[in-house]
């Protein structure tokens, strides 16, 4: 399967009891592998953090929490303006973090539902056009992010196919629900609405769904295919309903692959740049973290750009740790599963 790179089982066990390695080959290959990974992955990773801490820990934290002057301190106009500017910048950074998390909170559940349905349809049944369907599900993997953004402009832009409808659509930002107190009756209100679709956070959601589309489906299909339908058939023959079979048999069997797909989907949703850049219109309120990083860099704020980048890198490291934990658990569960399916 083309989804193999995101197959769940990549956990390194102990070294296999292969024939004794050729000492020269071993040294040469390990040296090559280690230097390649060092140059292409470790050095960039370290570099992100070195640049983020270029102004020390205080400088790092000031990107999120700008320094507060002591109340009695007298500030010049220039200093006041600098502090106000730092507060505005920090506000934008927090906004970008919030938007990134919100977008992921919408995109990931959508793709989980789709991934489960698509994997069920393509692995438990055989029908004409199945191979084509699998290829189409893979398609967003290899569509250029720029094209992914462009298609939504062509569809929903003012002159697009649904442009007339889309530009006149007004919608409420569900994440802007705030407590406003009882003086006007109901205490909750939405503080923000948008008109239009393209160049608003809604377009960011659509572009993110597009680029993260295949991750869950493709991490499930190889496993579900190899598991076959025996267990489901057994459950059904014992009188279980379809839904019950799905939730009690199928989902538990693929839970680790599902989680792995979710993690990759989340990572991509956090990190997508090209597609969301095209549909963001460069408006500050549409900035996700990667877009925010570009803006900070363009404002000559190198250190702040890398600080936000390091947060994304930390999220990446976190997802990698989560992934390692999942693989470890999955490897532990594996013998049990195998016994199960051979019944």
């Amino acid at each position: 399967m083309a989804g193999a790179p995101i197959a769940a089982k990549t956990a390194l066990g102990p070294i296999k009891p292969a024939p004794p390695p050729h000492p020269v080959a071993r040294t040469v290959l390990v040296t090559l592998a280690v230097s390649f990974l060092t140059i292409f992955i470790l050095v960039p990773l370290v570099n992100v953090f070195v640049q983020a801490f270029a102004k020390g820990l205080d400088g790092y934290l000031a990107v999120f929490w700008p320094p507060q002057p002591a109340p009695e301190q007298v500030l010049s106009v220039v200093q006041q303006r600098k502090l106000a500017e730092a507060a505005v910048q920090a506000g934008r950074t927090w906004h970008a973090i919030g938007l990134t998390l919100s977008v992921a909170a919408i995109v990931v559940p959508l793709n989980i539902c789709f991934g489960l349905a698509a994997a069920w349809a393509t692995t438990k049944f055989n029908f004409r056009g199945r191979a084509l369907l699998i290829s189409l599900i893979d398609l967003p993997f290899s569509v250029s992010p720029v094209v992914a953004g462009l298609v939504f402009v062509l569809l929903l832009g003012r002159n697009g196919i649904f442009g007339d409808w889309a530009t006149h659509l007004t919608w409420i930002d569900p994440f802007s629900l705030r407590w406003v107190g009882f003086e006007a009756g109901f205490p909750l209100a939405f503080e923000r609405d948008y008109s239009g679709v393209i160049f608003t956070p809604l377009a960011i959601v659509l572009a993110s769904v597009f680029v993260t589309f295949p991750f869950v489906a493709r991490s499930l299909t190889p496993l579900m295919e190899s598991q076959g339908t025996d267990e489901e058939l057994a459950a059904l023959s014992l009188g279980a309903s379809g839904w019950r079979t799905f939730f009690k048999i199928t989902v538990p069997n693929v839970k680790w692959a599902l989680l792995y797909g979710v993690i990759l989907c989340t990572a991509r949703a956090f990190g997508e740049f090209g597609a969301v850049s095209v549909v963001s219109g460069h408006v500050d309120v549409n900035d996700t973290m990667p877009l925010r990083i570009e803006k900070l860099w363009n404002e000559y704020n190198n250190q702040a750009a890398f600080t936000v980048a390091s947060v994304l890198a930390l999220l990446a490291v976190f997802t990698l740790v989560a992934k390692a934990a999942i693989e470890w658990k999955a490897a532990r569960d594996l013998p049990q599963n195998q016994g199960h399916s051979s019944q």
Partner: protein
Amino acid sequence: MSSRLKTRLAGVALGLIALAGAAAAAEVRLLNVSYDPTRELYAVIGQNFAAKWKAQTGDKVTVELSNGGSGKQARSVIDGLNADVVTLALGWDVTAIEKAGLINSGWQNKFPNHASPYTSTIAFLVRKGNPKGIKDWSDLLRPGVEVITANPKTSGGARWSFLSLWGAFAKARTHDFTTAAGQAEAKAAADAAKDFPIYNDAEARGKVSEIFNKHVPVLDAGARGSTVTFAQKQIGDVLLNWENELWLAKDEFGADKFDIVYPSTSILTEPPVAVVDKVVDQRGTRKVAEAYLSYLYTPEAQDVIGQLHYRPRDVAALNKYSAELPKIPFFTIDETYGGWAKAQATFFADGGIFDQFYKPAN
């Protein structure tokens, strides 16, 4: 307030996506879509305007910003970015939005000075001490000099740089814009200009082509990107860019890193502003949008404009910052090139002169 009530009703409904009119924001938001280097300027102007508007009317207004290459920004507005006002690098991009039916014709006369609240020009930024001795346009042609500019196809500032280069090599006629007499003379000359032999100037063409082909190592998409390339990535010997952008780079990176060099002549740039009629009418924001753009002409805003190294229209502000905005003779796009439509079509359109520079040999 009814809008507030509506918001609350929406809150009760907890509707995630409501159709038009179901929700209203608790405050007015204006979206100003602008070109790259004005980010710092409009951030300050926006805050000052909000304070003034609140004092005058009691309403809260937030000006949101979008910055990018001028052409890209115009396209975003045409594609559906709901900009209340546009403040772009050149008139051509506003005309493009006008042609799409979003801005009414005659926008040039809606605000003073052809709807252009400040002027600027193109100058050079060189490394401290000017190690390559770059003094004027002809020095850019010296062997080994690397010139940094953005791509004129995507950057308004780079289009001005291109026209400045071409005009200087073609020895375009200049005027003294610090005097009323000079300004009147320039205006009369622009009105009188009928044909524009400058487009066929073989010498200018050869020199500009040589610069882009042999001296430009990197072409960024936007004016700001080219500054980053020069200042942060430290590529190149001289940066061609907006005067205000050069000053900003000097302020940001330290006066010990760069020098600003003014060539003997340059182009007078007039970045326009306009209200996007269709959007403000749809959103009901015309009044505040017009007030926002008018605010740019107040002495208070003109002073901020001068402080940030744009050339104010206001004479008092211009004189106040004259030390940092030295007087050099300017040529104009109207007199030299017959306006943006012609310059755009000849130089930058698909298959135009700029594209011909980069035709691969085979």
